[in-house]
């Protein structure tokens, strides 16, 4: 399409001459005799370039220029001026003329001006297309972004895993329905209002702070089983994964994934319970050994008493009676152990001082220990205060373990060796108190260690019911705790028990 020109000049002769030469150069040329006519044609034909004389009767060139610029920005206007009209020429540039040329109009000058005007038009056209494309692009990207963010939002919302994310100053900015469910707080109460430390214990946060560099190095998420406290103050067992988010080496936030383990824990408990009943049922044969020893004791006791009566021997009567009493105790221990082991009993959290319990247990055994030249020592962590735990369970657990430790020393019985049973308490992280019972007695080899928690396996021969450790382990599991053992034949045995505690209610509120 040829470029459309509009020539406006009151001098008809120069106009028609110019028009002819421009037409021969390939332009489509329109002409007007004055400003008003020129504007009419402009409105109708929308030429690309307007060449107008500056001095015209009626509407002059400057006014025409102003009018055109009002209508369409893109039209290029070239002003034709007479000699000495430099002020007007400069004015015209101010109003947006693309160029001015002097009269008389010379063909080369005009073609240069036209060329320049055409270039500007091209450029403008390209710019327009570009801007339009850009706008379209922005719209597409915005749409895609919106889709993506919707997608992510839905993903987070529908996740079964609780997701809690924070910005760089640990204000919570993402908190999904699963997190609501686990922690009990509504999203409204948490989003932009709470900090990570308001939801998770400081211990947990510190643990993550410490793991942070590990993660950067290994790029592997660390997860562990722990407890979080919900809105009502209850401990919920969870699998916790947390990570700090970095952008270009700088921390930009953090995110925690929490999986509710309550149901799994409940199922685990059920399985354990049925296993336990099975153990009790299956090992009647094993129990027979313990029972046989007890019965033999009764027979022995009654034989001694018979002899005592017959011979009027009080010494025999006395030892026979003692033997019978001892075996009555054995019988009741065995029955009680069996009951404890097979019954599913609720853990009773009561205020107690774990240090006091440990001290009391040590005290109980001092007599027996001294008889056998065994030293019983207690190292109790002064940081431990009164807390809520199952006092009876702790007592039974420690009684069993300390009694075992003392037996391990008696059993070892190497002349000259000085035996010691050490009981230690430690206030550990994550609301846990650690109990340690260590002896330097006979110890266990691997075979023995593997069998250790199996029912009715007793190394004590006549002394044990074989249920002690089994009962101990059950009490610890009921208390959501854990038990670890380190033992070496000839070196001794160390039991480490971790038991969670709860703060005393009114103290926690204060």
């Amino acid at each position, binding site marked *: 399409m040829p470029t459309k020109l509009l020539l406006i000049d009151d001098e008809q002769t120069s106009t028609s001459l110019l028009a002819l030469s421009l037409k021969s150069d390939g332009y489509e040329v329109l002409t007007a005799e004055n400003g008003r006519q020129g504007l009419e044609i402009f409105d109708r034909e929308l030429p690309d370039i307007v060449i107008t004389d500056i001095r015209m009767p009626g509407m002059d060139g400057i006014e025409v220029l102003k009018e055109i610029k009002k209508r369409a920005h893109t039209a290029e206007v070239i002003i034709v001026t007479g000699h000495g009209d430099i002020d007007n020429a400069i004015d015209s540039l101010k109003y947006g003329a693309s160029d001015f040329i002097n009269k008389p109009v010379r063909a080369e000058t005009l073609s240069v001006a036209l060329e320049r005007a055409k270039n500007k038009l091209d450029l403008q056209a390209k710019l327009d297309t570009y801007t339009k494309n850009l706008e379209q692009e922005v719209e597409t990207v915005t749409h895609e972004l919106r889709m993506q963010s919707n997608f992510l939002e839905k993903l987070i919302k529908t996740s079964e895993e609780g997701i809690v994310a924070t910005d760089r100053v640990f204000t919570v900015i993402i908190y999904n329905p699963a997190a609501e469910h686990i922690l009990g707080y509504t999203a409204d109460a948490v989003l932009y209002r709470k900090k990570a430390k308001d939801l998770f214990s400081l211990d947990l946060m510190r643990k993550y702070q410490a793991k942070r560099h590990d993660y950067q190095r290994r790029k592997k998420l660390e997860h562990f089983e722990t407890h979080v406290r919900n809105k009502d103050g209850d401990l919920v067992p969870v699998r916790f994964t947390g990570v700090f988010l970095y952008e270009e080496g700088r921390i930009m936030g953090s995110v925690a994934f929490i999986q509710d383990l309550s149901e799994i824990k409940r199922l685990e408990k059920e399985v354990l319970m049925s296993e336990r009943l099975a153990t009790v049922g299956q090992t009647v044969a094993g129990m027979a*050994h313990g029972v*046989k*020893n007890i*019965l*033999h*004791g*009764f*027979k*022995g*006791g009654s*034989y*001694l008493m*018979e*002899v005592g009566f017959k011979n009027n021997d009080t010494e*025999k009567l006395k*030892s026979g009676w003692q*033997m019978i009493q*001892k075996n009555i105790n054995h019988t009741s221990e065995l029955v009680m152990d069996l009951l404890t082991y097979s019954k599913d009993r609720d853990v009773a959290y009561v205020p107690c001082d774990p240090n006091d319990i440990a001290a009391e247990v040590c005290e109980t055994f001092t007599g027996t220990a001294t008889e056998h030249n065994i030293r019983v020592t207690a190292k109790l962590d002064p940081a431990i205060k009164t807390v809520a735990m199952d006092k009876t369970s702790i007592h039974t657990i420690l009684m069993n373990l300390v009694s075992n430790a003392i037996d391990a020393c008696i*059993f070892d*019985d190497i002349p000259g060796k000085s035996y010691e049973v050490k009981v230690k308490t430690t206030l550990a992280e994550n609301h846990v108190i650690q109990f340690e019972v260590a002896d330097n007695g006979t110890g266990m080899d691997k075979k023995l260690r593997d069998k250790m928690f199996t029912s009715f396996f007793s190394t004590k*021969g*006549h002394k044990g019911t074989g249920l002690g450790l089994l009962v101990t382990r059950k009490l610890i599991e009921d208390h959501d705790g854990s038990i670890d053992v380190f033992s070496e034949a000839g070196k001794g045995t160390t039991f480490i028990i971790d038991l969670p505690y709860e703060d005393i209610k009114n103290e926690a509120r204060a």
Partner: protein
Amino acid sequence: MGKKILIVDDDPDVRLFSQAVLEENGYTPVVAKNGEEGEALIRQEAPDMILLDVLMPRESGIRLYRNMKTHKKYKNIPIIILSGIAEKSFLRSQKVLTEFGGDPVPDPEAYLEKPVDGEELANTIKKILG
């Protein structure tokens, strides 16, 4: 003075019981509280019979039994095993030990499974020692 019988048991009550039975029936008891002590007393006292528990610390009961039954001087001392373990289990364990390179050992002269009456124990001893 009656025949000398060695009691080897780690349980003091069992020792007391067996001792009373022996004394009541006119035998002379000698007591050891584990296998090592028992072996020493056999050399020292040369008993006419051994009353042995096999479940003792350091497997010393089993060791005493196998040492004596393969010893040319002492293998003819009759041994009565008095244990909470069933006789079948004990005999099976001895077969396994023999298969693992031990010398074959003859069965004990008598095997009494706890609990045992005083009379039963006395009768068993009498039957063997005559």
